[in-house]
């Protein structure tokens, strides 16, 4: 029963986290297309709010609740490939998360090196992660 509550809060946190993972690169797209300097400053503020106040805490809680959920699997020498595959994807997603932070810092330093097209592509990545991760968890395929 307690595990179900933890699972619920894992799902709630990850939904909030993904909200940011989806929208932050979208803000970068608009930011990269915008030439008005005052509006650029506003985008930096919007990006920082989203990244530090929403995505960081949400990623932290997703990870903590997820760790508690996965712990019984680890101590029982669980051999299901789906969980390990999922953890690899989560590790990639974490790197993506921190990469967004690096891009945000470059924008704040006026040193963005990428075009709007680049950010559009970057924007597609979390969708791929979301689909792959949810399918692995739901179907728990045996390889």
């Amino acid at each position, binding site marked *: 029963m307690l595990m*179900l509550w933890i699972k619920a809060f894992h799902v709630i946190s990850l*939904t909030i986290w*993904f909200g940011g993972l989806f929208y932050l690169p979208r803000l970068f797209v608009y930011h990269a297309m915008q030439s008005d300097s005052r509006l650029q400053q506003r985008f930096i503020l*919007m990006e920082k709010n989203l990244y530090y106040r929403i995505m960081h805490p949400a990623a932290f809680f997703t990870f903590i609740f997820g760790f508690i959920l996965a712990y019984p699997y680890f101590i029982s020498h669980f051999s299901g490939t789906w969980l390990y595959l999922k953890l690899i994807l989560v590790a990639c997603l974490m790197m993506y998360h921190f990469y967004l932070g690096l891009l945000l810092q470059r924008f704040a330093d006026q040193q963005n090196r990428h075009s709007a097209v680049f950010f559009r592509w970057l924007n597609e990545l979390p969708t791929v992660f979301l689909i792959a991760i949810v399918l692995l968890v*739901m*179907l728990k395929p045996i390889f």
Partner: protein
Amino acid sequence: MLWIKAFHIIFVVTWFSGLFYLPRLFIYHTQWNDAVSNQQFKIMEKKLYYYITTPAGILTLLFGFWVLSYNFSGYLQESWLHMKFAMVLLLVIYHMYLGKIVGDFQMDQNRHSKGFYYALHGLPTLFLVIIVILAVVKPGGVIS
């Protein structure tokens, strides 16, 4: 069935990202209402609402009912599902209300303050917490 449930969850996550960020855009839009910002926010709101939030919302409902269709009479006896239905109905009304506000902004006829949008902004989190707890923990018994 698990495939359908998986895609239901994927669309829920996408839908909520829009439900979370739209009111946030309204806050900024109200706060910064010079001509350049106004144009920019109009585009952002329109795209987020019509290209992301609304399609994701429709697909969430379709896949949700598809999941239910596998054991409709069985699910109908679960009390948590009745509560979830009520919450989803409110969420759909909330979604459509956001659409009305997007329309008001498009016509430069925003009628609300920043504080109002802050309050509005808190609602989807509340819905998310209640709905996920209902669906995962499934509290309450079977209706006899």
